[in-house]
């Protein structure tokens, strides 16, 4: 290696490279959409969280990348070289690093907590549905004027839905990637989630917890409709179950 | 580097230190073992509507097990007494102390087994039976182990191999025995009394 360059000069160069890479990286990330489908209020929060986490990660990633690449290029031992300088540590730097990463973690934690509470939201809901899981199929139960069961989940758009989840046999997990939501179905206890679909369409429901042979196939569909269409569907189903 | 150092090789004091430290560490993991079973007991009991959950079982009476508890506790005392004897170099006292300890431990086990046979419920009778028998059974296993170890030491004492300056094994065993004892008291208070 060439000993021309002074230690602090090395720092400056590496620091500059790091800054540039980080900024470029962050700009790229800000242009991304990470989740392929974002069809619920909750999914929006999650997408936002993913972007924020990635933005925070870029400088960390770049720091380590530069920290590896720069020495690999500049600090290679030459043939005659003996040992490097006997530096055992650097108090101020160590404190700075610990406090720095700690601050980042605190930031992430606060942000994460806010997001979580936001996802949970209040306990009001427009509609309550019960999702029954059993090896290896889903069954959805609607209440109100007349109770009835449906093999597919149908929801009105833009309304807060309260989904109660229970299992008849083993642990399953109610998962709708498009909504971002996921909640295990545990035998012997009732679990719940709130979700607010925001885009009309048909999406997949899947079981996300290993539950034996049929786990792979344990899927259903969820259709999100305009409230009016949903009302019609409800009426029709109730009539059907009446007959 | 250079001069020869015999680093505790064959040095009895050093060896003793290692053995005792090792045992203490092992006991730590034993504490976690019982801890897990106790955790399960409290969680399941907490979730049950009543304890025992089903009315057709009832918890064993306290009289017999209470006496049994006293027996086990006193066995710890006699064992400690045996150690004090060996420290004084009193071989016959040592043997007597160990003998009594073994007898007391034996009685404890016997009573436990008697109780198991006369409880109105089995291990397969709901979470009540599951937690009760796995906890007491696990502890019983430890008592048995302790008894075997004490008997070994007693045998060596009989052969005069345990004396004022060679009784590490005895101390180790007593440490273990006291631990088993403490576990029982906890178990008695939480599983039987509480």
């Amino acid at each position, binding site marked *: 290696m060439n000993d021309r360059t002074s230690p602090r000069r090395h720092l400056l160069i590496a620091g500059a490279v790091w800054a540039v890479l980080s900024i470029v990286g962050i700009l790229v990330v800000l242009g991304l959409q990470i989740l392929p489908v974002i069809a619920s209020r909750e999914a929006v929060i999650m997408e936002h969280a993913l972007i924020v986490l990635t933005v925070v990660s870029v400088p960390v990633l770049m720091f380590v990348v530069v920290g590896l690449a720069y020495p690999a290029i500049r600090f290679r031992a030459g043939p005659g070289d003996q040992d490097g300088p006997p530096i055992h540590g650097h108090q101020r730097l160590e404190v700075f690093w610990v406090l720095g990463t700690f601050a980042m973690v605190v930031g992430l934690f606060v942000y994460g907590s806010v997001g979580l509470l936001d996802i949970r939201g209040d306990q009001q809901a427009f509609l309550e549905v019960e999702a029954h899981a059993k090896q290896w199929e889903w069954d959805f139960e609607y209440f109100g004027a007349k109770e009835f069961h449906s093999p597919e989940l149908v929801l009105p758009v833009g309304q807060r839905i309260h989904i109660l989840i229970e299992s008849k046999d083993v642990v399953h997990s109610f998962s709708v990637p498009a909504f971002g939501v996921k909640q295990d179905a545990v035998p012997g206890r009732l679990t719940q989630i709130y979700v607010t679909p925001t885009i009309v369409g048909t999406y997949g429901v899947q079981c996300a917890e290993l539950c034996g042979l049929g786990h792979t196939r344990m899927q259903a569909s969820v259709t999100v409709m305009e409230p009016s269409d949903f009302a019609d569907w409800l009426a029709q189903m109730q009539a059907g179950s009446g007959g | 580097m250079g001069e020869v150092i015999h680093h505790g090789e064959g040095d009895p004091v050093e060896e003793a230190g290692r053995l005792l*430290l090792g045992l203490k560490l092992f006991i730590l993991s034993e504490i976690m073992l019982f801890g897990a079973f106790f955790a399960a007991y409290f969680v399941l009991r907490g979730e049950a509507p009543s304890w025992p959950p089903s009315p057709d079982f009832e918890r064993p009476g306290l009289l017999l097990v209470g006496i049994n508890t006293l027996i086990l506790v006193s066995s710890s005392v006699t064992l400690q007494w045996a150690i004090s004897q060996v420290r004084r170099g009193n071989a016959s006292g040592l043997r007597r102390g160990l003998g009594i300890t073994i007898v007391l431990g034996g009685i404890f086990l016997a009573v436990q087994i008697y109780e198991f046979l006369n409880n109105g419920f089995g291990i397969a009778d709901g979470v009540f039976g599951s937690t009760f028998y796995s906890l007491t059974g696990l502890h019983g296993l430890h008592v048995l182990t302790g008894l075997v170890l004490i008997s070994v030491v007693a045998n060596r004492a009989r052969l005069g191999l345990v004396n004022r300056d060679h009784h590490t094994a005895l101390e180790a065993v007593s440490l273990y025995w006291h631990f088993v004892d403490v576990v029982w008291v906890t178990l008695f208070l939480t599983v039987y009394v509480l």
Partner: protein
Amino acid sequence: MSVSRLPALRFFGPGLRRGVLGGIIGAAVGPLPVILLTTAGDDVNSAHVLALGYVGVLIGWFAGLGAFGPWLRWAAGREADHAAAVAAHGHAGDWRRYFRFTTDHKVIGTQYMLAFLALFLVAGSLAMVMRLELAQPGQLFGTDTYNTIMSTHGTLMIFVALNTIVGGLGNYFVPLMIGARDMAFPRVNALSFWFIPPALLLILLNPVFGGFDSGWTGYPPLSRQANLGEQAYLLTFITMGISSIVSAVNFLVTVARMRTTGMSWMRLPIFVWSLTVTTAIALVATSVVASALTMSLFDRILGTDFFRPTSGGDPVLYQHLFWFYSHPAVYIMAVPAFGAVLEVVPVFARKPLFAYRLAVLSFIAIGLLSFMVWAHHMFVSGMAEFFHIPIMATTELISVPTGIVFFSAIGTIWLGRLRFATPMLWVFGFVWSFLIGGITGVYLADVPTDIALTDTYFVVAHFHYTIVGGMIFGMFAGLTYWFPKFTGRMMSERLGKLHFWWFTLAFNAAFLPMFWLGFQGMRRRVADYPAELANVNLWASIAAWMIGLSMFVFIFNFIRSWARGPKAGPNPWGARTLEWQIASPPPVENFDDLPVVTAGPYEYGGRPVMPSPAIDPSGASS
């Protein structure tokens, strides 16, 4: 005088043969009580027979190996048989001692190393089969087959990750690095290893018992309905647990009590520190999972109801107990790798380890924190909701001490005189891969994102980046670094570098795309997936097979170099820690005179230095 002295019985002298014989007898005798019960009319099934038969095997096996001999002598109050003790230690150059109940820590270390490298290859081959199934949509073989392969791969690999560095490199090098002649309890050490062959045999046989499809996590109630193979998993896991508790005690006593004169705590090589923390974690956490698995086993064979919801049991309780161990377990995998990596860095950067004390503190902090984060595996499990936020806090907090490892590594290479021999390459590979694994871990620690990502391939990618990118890379760094010491020969640098680049590129190519698959919502533990994910999965499969192929380079290099690589000499890398100051391979007694330590382990630069490395800086030599 033991029978083995009679010529007629020598064939069945204490050792492997008699061990196997004993095992077989035990297998036959063990279940007898149940058989009798059956005749007595109680309901008994294959489950009971398997469980008791296995216990019988263990007892017979150890009896046959002659493990109990000296203890029985002692119990009977007979004189210790010194000839036997020396024999148990074995003589240099006697290959047979590698197949006996040998008490030399170097032999035991080698036994661990080779056993788990072999297991790594087997479990890896299973992964190859998995990637075959996942190469395209639709199913090649039945779901049950896939689940069994997947579960076995996971379980075996967890054992690999837990034991290869600790049991292998740890047993071999800790006594050497602290200047001791052996571990504190050599026989116990041997015991902890010989638990493993019967245990592994059992789980490898699980297909015979119908396989098990509960994944490596074995969640009830599924684990209760699963085939008898589930029991192979439970019994093996419990046995491995016992083995690691026993060896943890041994390690801790060794480090606490057997450091040579002058080897103060703050002069301990960082690798020894890492193993101290690791074994402390193992000591405290392991018996908890052993209990959980035992309850699961009881639910199957004794009809208990711990996890059976229909009669008051609680499946989530199992998850709590399981993860209370299994999260700390991931640091049992990672911290030794941290230690190995930080051990290698100063040697090839020719600079003292940067911020040694801080690194030690970070290990301890990781050890403590690792007990407060288990529930981050259960954010969607239906556990109490108030639990989410504190667990998120503690989990993210672990990033700080873990970050210090990176800080220390980079601080060391900065301004160093880097020599890129193979071990150093693995260090760089480690820092990169584990960083990806760690950062994605933070994505999972954040509850809002974890809800979306849990049980998807994002998690699969995360933990392969942490375990493979962390533990396996660290293991290769350690193996290639210490190879000259335990074989006395140099590995081929050329092949070593080929393996490194091939493995690393293939590994990243295989697992980076899995993060994307996770975002697409592809679930883990499925044998089939939507068609639109076909291409990426095919790519991942091909890259995965490349990883597999790269391993042949390693196998070849490892065997060939061990057989006839160039002689290494005592200290080919010019390292300063104790193990390098004696012959390679080390003599049976390690040190003729125990050394006196007068300086820290990484005094490069400053004071008079070791002869500079025998490898040329570019590291191109072989």
